[in-house]
């Protein structure tokens, strides 16, 4: 049997075996085909709904349509903030034949410096959905775009995408007014309406950009698009257009702003000018400024450190956050307080021996003029800025009445409508001192407060606002920066406006104005040199604030030391007296001299038909001051 099997083939048996085996095979094939059919049935019938949804989700994409950010203009329609297209370099790896070669080509074409090459390569490896572009570089220069365009045929999968970016044509002089936008950070992201900010990368960080973020941003739109796997949009299925942000017109006159910045002439200081009737802030300068455009694209670490370490503190908005002892500039307000509270009459004469003494106290509080001004009434007290007179007023009023009257003019409070970061200053009082230091109030401190020293602190914006209110016969208008938002005109009355300052006799206003006019025109006026040849009636008050101490950890060389120990010079004023058009506060740190001339030049420019303002055709970016930041 075994032998037979080895040598002779049994054909009947072989055919039978083959037939059986192919029958089994046919059966198995039918079973396997059945398996495939049931799988297909499962996918195409039972789970059909799931997959149809998935396939729709694949092809349809809801894209946010970011709104165009509102533009910002000055009161004359000069553009202060615009949106400029910038160009970003993106790469779709799936469409690149050889990533390394392409990257090397890009590096050569763009002429990238060594230290950027690594980040560049890293970005290209970032994990991404297939066929989604990865951002390689933002803010390409025109030159780079041109070079990329020329080499386009070598760079499949590489694309240049346009995006709108904020741009400030006048970045330094306007820096503290406008503020700036920057990339949305994680904290902000958590607070934002994710729907409205879905396609937006920037948000207002400071200044007007911050205050009016909601209005400037607008409302995001949506569009439903059909895309292919590469993410390329094939057609639009549905669209809900975005509502662009509202354009904002500021109360700022950029010519006046520039002029004020130039007048400060590289010194540290601030100037605020307000139109008393409307509360329009015509100029709000804090010098030195800084280049806000650098913050939009993302300032480099070195640049930022340079700004932060700059002793002139360019990032610090002195106009609204700088809290200075107001010095003698508070005397007109104090005079009104004394008149209203009946502690003095305009013609009452006080004898100034050169100092003031509290009863039962031997300490002498000196007038700035050591030998005294002799007989002084209210007008002369303001004209010569007599300290003894105002020591007496402060003593008679007492800190409680003085403090509460000064509060009526906005000292120690934030009165502005829309100025971001405005500081309240400090109007000291008995309660304040008890709370802060748990100490009793000393009478001597009342005297210091009476000449705007001691604890008394005010910001330039506060001084300007108080001066405007003074010019208005006590009528309050909240100072504000926005004049028009879209179609809406921003004009008084504003909500939460302080009640007007009331005095029993209207002529008291005139009495104070007369004293302030004498500052410029009187034979003894503290700013009589500046007042020469004045073509309109102007009221003003000068002031000096002592520099008390230096900040710790600050090192100065000898020259610097003496320079920075000089007194701050202040000035407030308004004009014309009968129909006030402009109220100004000026502070120049460590000025070492009077700054009334700055105020006079600004009012001249604003009021005179052939003033300097009219001769400034249109302000341009001041190239000279560009070097101030970053030094």
């Amino acid at each position: 049997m075994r032998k037979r099997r080895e040598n002779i083939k049994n054909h009947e048996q072989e055919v039978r075996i083959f037939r059986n085996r192919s029958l089994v095979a046919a059966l198995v094939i039918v079973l396997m085909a059945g398996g495939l059919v049931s799988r297909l049935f499962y996918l195409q019938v039972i789970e059909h709904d799931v997959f149809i949804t998935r396939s729709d989700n694949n092809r349809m994409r809801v894209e946010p349509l970011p709104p165009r950010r509102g533009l910002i203009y000055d009161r004359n329609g000069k553009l202060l903030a615009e949106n400029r297209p910038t160009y970003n370099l993106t790469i779709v790896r799936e469409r690149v034949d050889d990533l390394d070669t392409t990257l090397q080509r890009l590096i050569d074409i763009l002429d990238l410096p060594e230290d950027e090459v690594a980040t560049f390569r890293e970005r290209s490896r970032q994990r991404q959905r297939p066929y989604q572009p990865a951002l390689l570089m933002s803010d390409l220069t025109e030159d780079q775009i041109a070079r990329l365009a020329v080499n386009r045929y070598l760079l499949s999968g590489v694309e240049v995408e346009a995006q709108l970016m904020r741009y400030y044509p006048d970045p330094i002089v306007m820096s503290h007014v406008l503020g700036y936008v920057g990339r949305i950070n994680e904290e902000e992201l958590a607070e934002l309406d994710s729907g409205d900010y879905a396609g937006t990368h920037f948000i207002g960080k400071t200044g007007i950009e911050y205050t009016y973020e909601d209005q400037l941003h607008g409302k995001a739109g949506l569009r439903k698009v059909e895309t292919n796997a590469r993410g390329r949009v094939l057609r639009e299925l549905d669209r809900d257009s975005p509502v662009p942000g509202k354009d904002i017109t500021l109360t700022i006159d950029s010519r006046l702003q520039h002029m004020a910045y130039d007048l400060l002439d590289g010194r540290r200081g601030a100037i605020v000018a307000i139109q008393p009737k409307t509360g329009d802030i015509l100029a709000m300068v804090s010098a030195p400024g800084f280049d806000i455009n650098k913050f939009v694209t993302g300032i480099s670490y070195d640049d930022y450190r340079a700004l932060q370490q700059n002793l002139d503190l360019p990032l610090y908005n002195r106009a609204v956050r700088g809290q200075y002892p107001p010095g003698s500039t508070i005397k007109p307000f104090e005079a009104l307080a004394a008149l209203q509270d009946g502690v003095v009459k305009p013609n009452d004469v006080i004898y100034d021996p050169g100092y003031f003494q509290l009863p039962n106290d031997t300490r002498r509080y000196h007038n700035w003029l050591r030998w005294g001004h002799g007989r002084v009434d209210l007008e002369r007290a303001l004209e010569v800025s007599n300290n003894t007179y105002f020591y007496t007023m402060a003593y008679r009023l007492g800190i409680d009445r003085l403090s509460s009257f000064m509060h009526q003019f906005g000292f120690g409070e934030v009165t502005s409508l829309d100025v971001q970061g405005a500081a309240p200053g400090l109007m000291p009082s008995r309660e304040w001192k008890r709370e802060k230091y748990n100490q009793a109030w000393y009478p001597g401190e009342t005297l210091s407060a009476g000449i705007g020293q001691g604890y008394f602190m005010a910001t330039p914006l506060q001084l300007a606002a108080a001066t405007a209110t003074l010019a208005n016969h006590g009528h309050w208008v909240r100072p504000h920066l926005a004049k028009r938002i879209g179609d809406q005109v921003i004009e008084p009355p504003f909500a939460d406006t302080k009640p007007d300052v009331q005095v029993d006799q209207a002529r008291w206003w005139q009495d104070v104005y007369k004293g302030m006019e004498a500052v410029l025109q009187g034979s003894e006026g503290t700013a009589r040199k500046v007042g020469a040849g004045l073509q309109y009636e102007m009221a003003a008050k000068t002031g000096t604030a002592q520099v008390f101490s230096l900040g710790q950890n600050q090192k100065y060389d000898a020259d610097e030391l003496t320079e920075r120990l000089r007194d701050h010079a202040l000035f407030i004023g308004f004009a014309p007296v009968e129909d006030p058009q402009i109220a100004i506060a000026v502070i120049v740190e460590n000025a070492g001299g009077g700054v009334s001339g700055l105020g006079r030049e600004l009012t001249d420019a604003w009021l005179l038909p052939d003033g300097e303002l009219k001769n400034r055709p249109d302000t341009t970016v001041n190239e000279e001051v560009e070097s101030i930041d970053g030094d």
Partner: protein
Amino acid sequence: MAIDFQRVAPRTHRARVGRKRSIWLRIHLDPWLLSILVLLISFGLVVLYSASGMSTSTTMAQASRMGVALLGAIVIAQFTPVTLLRWTPVAYGAGLLMLVAVEIMGDIGMGAQRWLEIGPLRFQPSELMKIAMPMMLAAYLHRRPLPPTWRDLLVCGVIVGVPVLLIARQPDLGTSLLVTCAAVFVILLAGLSWKFIVTLVAMAGGAMPLLWINMHDYQRQRVLTFLNPESDPLGAGWNIIQSKTAIGSGGLEGKGWGLGTQSQLEFLPERHTDFIVAVLGEEFGLIGMGTILVLYLLLVARGLVMANNAQDTYGRLLAGSIVLTFFIYVFVNIGMVSGILPVVGVPLPLVSYGGTSSVTLMAGFGILMSIHTHRRLLTH
């Protein structure tokens, strides 16, 4: 060999009764097989036109390629099985040599090497092995009494093992498994005892961990992705998720020719090659899938009938193996695209865009027709 042919005599006598030598037999072609083939190819071209994004040039290129392949099948059908049997060792030997050549070139070059370039021609020896391997086994078993003995199996093991190992080393796991499949079918059809089959399956099961250890990372990744495609939806799982979505969203009737969003918007990868059946599923639905499956089953059924009518062991085993292997291609491809098998690079026979595999398949059908139509010539 002569003895074998004489032994066949009694059966041929019976087969001859009542049958005229039809025109088809005289030109050595099978009308049933050819009709189904033409139907399948035509349906395939319709799907390809859509899958290639309405590319006339791609479709025409494929059409002419299939035409040439069909012509090749007709030419091969003219050779007698005797001739084929005679050339079998040569084909096998040549295939083996080329595989060795690829191996050596692979060592010199680097990485995966599957091609052999001779002048302008690029040739894939593993494709030749898909045919030469079952031929060689059938030729060997043809001379042995069946069912095969242990010694026969050992010889078969060597015939199969050497080229399969060489192909697996390229590395081309998919092809090496398919070639093994073709060989296993020959042995199974030859009457390998069920006991042995059960033992072998058990052993294969035991060898799985060993296989896993020796796999390349990308192969393991494929298996893992197959087991859980959602684990890497943007990477390796992307293909499967997209093809399942395409098929599933097609539903019963499909989205319509050229209207499949998965295919036309390019979410589906390799949509005109390995994943073409997903295009079919999306655009023609379950009805379309059923139709193509029926066509494949008809082709396999006709092939099995032809194999059963073969007159000698060589023809029977070779024809059977070709038919069963063909079905395995279909099963593996549709199974992979519909997500019940791992992703291995197996095209859908006669439908997927591409030349090499079509040529091999058509050569197989040519051999099938040769075996079927040359029965009478074997008798006196």
